[in-house]
């Protein structure tokens, strides 16, 4: 199981509290984890990645094991501690005022 920590607004949309966990078939990459996340919580489709292009939304970031994976190719394999469930994948909203 891959652990994922969502930003608070997406937890509300997904009707979850705390972190979530998703099963991934095959290699755990950014793309496969997001695919699994959207399959389990379809109300999140379009909120993390653009519906049409599947590009990451500009004000979101993907962090794991103190690394910024936001600009890595979607096929990039996630760090081992994430694939083993020791560490979560964090989806973070950019800080902003207003």
């Amino acid at each position, binding site marked *: 199981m891959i652990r994922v920590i969502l930003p608070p607004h997406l937890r509300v*949309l997904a009707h979850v509290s705390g972190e979530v966990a998703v099963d991934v078939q095959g290699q755990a990459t950014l793309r496969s984890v997001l695919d699994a996340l959207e399959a389990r919580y*379809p109300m999140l489709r*379009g909120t993390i990645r653009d519906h049409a292009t599947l590009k990451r939304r500009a004000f979101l970031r993907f962090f794991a094991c103190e690394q910024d994976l936001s600009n890595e190719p979607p096929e990039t394999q996630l760090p081992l501690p994430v694939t083993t469930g020791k560490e979560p994948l964090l989806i973070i909203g950019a800080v902003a005022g207003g």
Partner: protein
Amino acid sequence: MAGVRVLVGTRKGAFTLTSDTKRERWDIKGPLFGGWEIYHLKGSPVDPNRIYASQSSGWFGQIIQRSDDGGMSWHQPGMKNGEEAPTGRPKSESNKFVYDTSPGTGKPLTTHQWYDGTQHPWEFKRVWHLEPSLTDPDTVYAGVEDAALFRSTDGGETWNEVAGLRGHSSGPRWAPGAGGMGLHTILLHPTDPRRMYVAISAAGAFRTDDGGTNWRPINRGLHSLYIPDPDAEVGHCVHRIAMHKSRPDVLFMQKHWDVMRSDDAGEMWREVSGNLPSDFGFPIDVHAHEPETIYVVPIKSDSEHYPPDGKLRVYRSRKGGDEWEALTEGLPQRDCYVDVLREAMAVDCLDSCGIYFGTTGGQVYASSDEGDSWKPIARDLPAVVSVEVQTLT
């Protein structure tokens, strides 16, 4: 319960304000969708329990919300609140607004004019306006930025572009204003389902007479000094159009400067700004029972965008324009520097027509006597973006 339900969209969530028909005491519920921008909420005229809401965020994009119980509970269409995810590939396309590029549905254009004069691809940003059908609660139109018209016939679960609008040959000359290029006004003809009006900032007004397949600009008579040809076919920054259902060929427009009127379904417009202290403003609306009685809120511009002289005044014309009276009782008449945005005025249908408007200062003002007197029914909300009213029987 008979009464009034006011649907308020703000920069940080939605609120519902309800009252009985006396409209003296108001119950405020919210914020719904706290922290999200709610550009618009609107109820179905067929089923007042069916309400659609446009929820958007710079972080997470567009969400469509729907209530089937008058705003008590909400869900993303196609996904009941708290429902387990379906097996297999999920549908969940209620927030999927993809421009039509298929040649079979018209002549969709791929670019419009950008700020630097170059052509720029259409990019979906958000839904500005939701207009439920007059006959079917599951059919609803969405006006979006970048300007286009979408339609859902399954209660908002899926959306398809009404591509003929963007297919008009003037499309490459449409351009965004400083606030973006949004389709913000959708008026459905009360008896002829083939006729519809839309307005776009900054392209102008358009009309279809065949249910959306073909469109044409209806901007003759508009005069805009901020475009190279002030009388151009398109390029006008129309802020709002209003219509009374008993006279669907008579249209009233608040433009980026000038209040206008058309008596022939937009074929020709004439200015009716008359004695207004400023002919700039955003909303315009029509009395529920008197089709010649109209309301505007004059605002100072360029760029100040607050009431002239710090006095918040609604102006009413009982002659369809030209002659206006200031309505001030109960409204702040000094040191008031709020704005009233284009979606933020609406009327109810009770015997003594009620008028409602919201401000960027977070107040919602209501009049239960056709505008003669006003009182705040909410004082300290986030900046109000939209106000709609449901008259419940």
